[in-house]
């Protein structure tokens, strides 16, 4: 069960904890390729460059970052495949 405050559930999760630039971007792009348009990908990353880099990646690829928030381990992204 999820409560109203829990983050939106993703169709797929990608764990990038422990990975450094450029791997979170490369892995995220690979995973997004596997999804259908409209599906969402949750990315967990502790690379300090991940926030800026995934934003740049989303800007260039046209994919949409729905949520971006701090967690105990680092940052959680929720990305929607838009195309």
């Amino acid at each position, binding site marked *: 069960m999820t409560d109203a405050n829990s983050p939106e559930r993703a169709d797929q999760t990608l764990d990038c904890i422990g990975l450094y*630039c*450029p791997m979170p*971007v*490369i892995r*995220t*792009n*690979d995973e997004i390729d596997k999804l259908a348009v409209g599906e969402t990908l949750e990315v967990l990353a502790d690379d300090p460059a991940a926030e800026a880099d995934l934003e*740049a*990646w989303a*800007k*260039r*690829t*046209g994919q949409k970052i729905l949520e971006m928030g701090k967690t105990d381990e680092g940052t959680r992204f929720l990305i929607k495949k838009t*195309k």
Partner: protein
Amino acid sequence: MIDKKKILYVQTSGVDTPKRLYSPFVLAMTAKAMGIDATIYFLGSGVTVVKKGAAENVKEGSFPTVKEIINQAIAAGVKLSVCEQSCQLLGIERGEFIPEAKVVGAATLNDLVLDADGTMWF
């Protein structure tokens, strides 16, 4: 979404300077993941990086060998071009390069620069 862009990376540093070799490959493979077309042009001493068997022996700190990074970039679809005149300068024959590296000339580099949306030189 922005129209398909192109970035040209020019590597002028050779296997004697390992610290200068990783960046263009990492940037270029990341560009591909961002939907950006990426080409690396090896010029001057830079041609030593794509000489067969050379990059396998080049490594810096905890990083993988340069050859591993080259393979990742190739797998990502990064194009590699080698300067013909630089090969002559360094006495390297055409057949001595990794097969993915295409030997081209000065006109091609000039054209690639004008055609690119941005260039980076290493």
